[in-house]
């Protein structure tokens, strides 16, 4: 052992050695590509010729160019997220509350709800394109009650709803998180309000919701980001050839990897990145009003 100084220095060296893979990763996979995305977004580049500097032309073309699909992709993505996220959130909380009751076969029920969320998206889409086929199982069942089912995954007016159905089917991950959070709520809180004569709804409003609020926020933020970034479902269902389901990431993919418009695609990436950041910040700011952290001093 040498002096304390060299001990501290050795600890610092050890820190950077252990961090080395991740620091390289940050630089190579995040920092450099982020800057490169920004730079590329001001160019016109087809991967083969030298990139040309075009200034803001990619951006103006995207936002106001003739025949731009940007707003369509944005509208479709917003529709998908605006329905899927609240529905999933509400249903996850509701089912978690039910599954938290002292019922028989509770473990079996939980497994049933969790199972679909573990299935890879490609398999989910294979299964549901079979179930939602124009003359498939779902429409056969609808036919029994006299409803003429739509061409779910083909009709541009319906394809987003078909995709939402698949998303709702996979809500199990959220249910599990809410269940874990419900079990972390101390019983004595409920017992105290019971003595005060509070009913079930009142308990739900003034204990369960505040105690769950951090997890609600976590699921909300993750849900929004995940829904806005949807790709695999959309691509497998439509191959990008259904205007009703043109969404942001498939739109980016198409421009980058089918049309080789690297600069244009980078501009989409930059706009999308800024939008997600702003939306996340807005949600986080808004959450200060309703998220309750235990042990927080107000």
């Amino acid at each position: 052992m040498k002096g304390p100084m060299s001990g501290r220095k050795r600890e610092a060296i050890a820190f950077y050695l252990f961090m080395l893979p991740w620091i390289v990763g940050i630089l190579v996979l995040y920092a450099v590509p982020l800057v490169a995305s920004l730079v590329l977004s001001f160019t016109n580049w087809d991967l083969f010729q030298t990139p040309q500097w075009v200034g803001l032309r990619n951006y103006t073309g995207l936002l106001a160019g003739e025949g731009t699909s940007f707003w369509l992709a944005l509208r479709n993505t917003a529709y998908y997220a605006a329905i899927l996220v609240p529905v999933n959130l509400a249903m996850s909380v509701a089912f978690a509350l039910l599954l938290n009751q002292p019922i028989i076969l509770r473990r079996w029920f939980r497994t049933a709800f969790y199972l679909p969320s573990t299935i890879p998206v490609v398999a989910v889409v294979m299964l549901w394109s079979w179930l939602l086929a124009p003359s498939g199982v779902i429409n056969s069942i609808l036919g029994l009650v006299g409803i003429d089912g739509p061409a779910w995954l083909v009709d541009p007016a319906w394809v987003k709803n078909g995709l939402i159905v698949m998303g709702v089917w996979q809500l199990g991950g959220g249910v599990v998180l809410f269940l874990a959070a419900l079990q972390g709520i101390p019983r004595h809180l409920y017992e105290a309000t019971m003595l005060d004569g509070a009913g079930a709804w009142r308990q739900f409003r003034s204990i369960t919701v505040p105690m769950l609020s951090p997890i609600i926020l976590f699921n909300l933020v993750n849900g929004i980001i995940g829904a806005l970034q949807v790709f695999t479902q959309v691509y497998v269902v439509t191959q990008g050839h259904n205007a009703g389901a043109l969404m942001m990431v498939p739109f980016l993919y198409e421009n980058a990897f089918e049309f080789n418009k690297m600069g244009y695609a980078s501009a989409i990436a930059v706009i999308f990145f800024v939008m997600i950041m702003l939306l996340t910040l807005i949600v986080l700011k808004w959450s200060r009003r309703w998220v309750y952290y235990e042990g927080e001093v107000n």
Partner: protein
Amino acid sequence: MTSSSQAPAPARSAVRPGLRGRPASTSTTTRRRPRLRSRIPVYVILLFGTVLMVLPLLWMISTSLASTKYVTTFPPRIIPNTFQVANYGRIFSDTDLGKYLLNSVVIVIPSMVGQVVASSFAGYALARLRAPGRRVWFVITLCTLMIPYEATIVPTFVMFRYLGWINTFWPLIVPQLFGSGYSIFLMRQFIMQIPTEYDEAARLDGLSYFGIWRRIIVPLSVPAMATVAIFTFTFQWGNFLGPLIYINDSDKYPLALGLYAMTQTSNVGQTPDWNLIMAGGMLLTVPMVMVYFFGQRFLYEGANTLGQIRV
């Protein structure tokens, strides 16, 4: 967003390393008998939900066992009139899914090992080792969580293309070898709950920092490492966009992309063999379900660590 960096998360008793098993049941269990009747609506709703969740799966299984002729009958029935287990043999003999499965395994295993080791390294450093800049690196790590993947996808593709890695597994595996913000955050939170007395005792015994990681941290953070391994498996096993961008040669398709390609290559006007596609879907699904089934107990502890996130 980064307020979690302000103070070390308080240790919660449920996350003690080594404490495994099911969560304690709630004390309302004692009321089971008198309130059974009032729970009938609960059962009705849960049963309805369960049917919606499980029925599609049963349909996948039943279709995967049906004969090709039955598949096109209308209206479809849930109990097939045949049980052709041979369909599962046919996906290996008549299709390329066996090859795709092997490709998936070759991609997934190094990814899991790399992700676990790299994130355990960084998690240990961020949780335990004092160094100038540690706080900054932690904040940067959290910031990477907020960067959506498509913000970097074009330059990353250009970089791998420049390296000549198109049509190889490298662009899929290599990014996993550096760790990821999420795994590192999880490892760090978990390691912070291991008592520092162990490290100090090991220091006095003359163990190096690597020795402490190897002998103390690794054995005590198995649940967190398992959680990272499971999440990596989940991501990589189902990964579709990555292979779609980087792999053009169908001999190198992983299972998810290969299964998709199978539905696309049937002749025009001819519907693909749904029974074989559903059998392929099962091939993609079963390993994932098994990983979750056996990893459950670790995931519960991982989820608890996650529960302390304050966004």
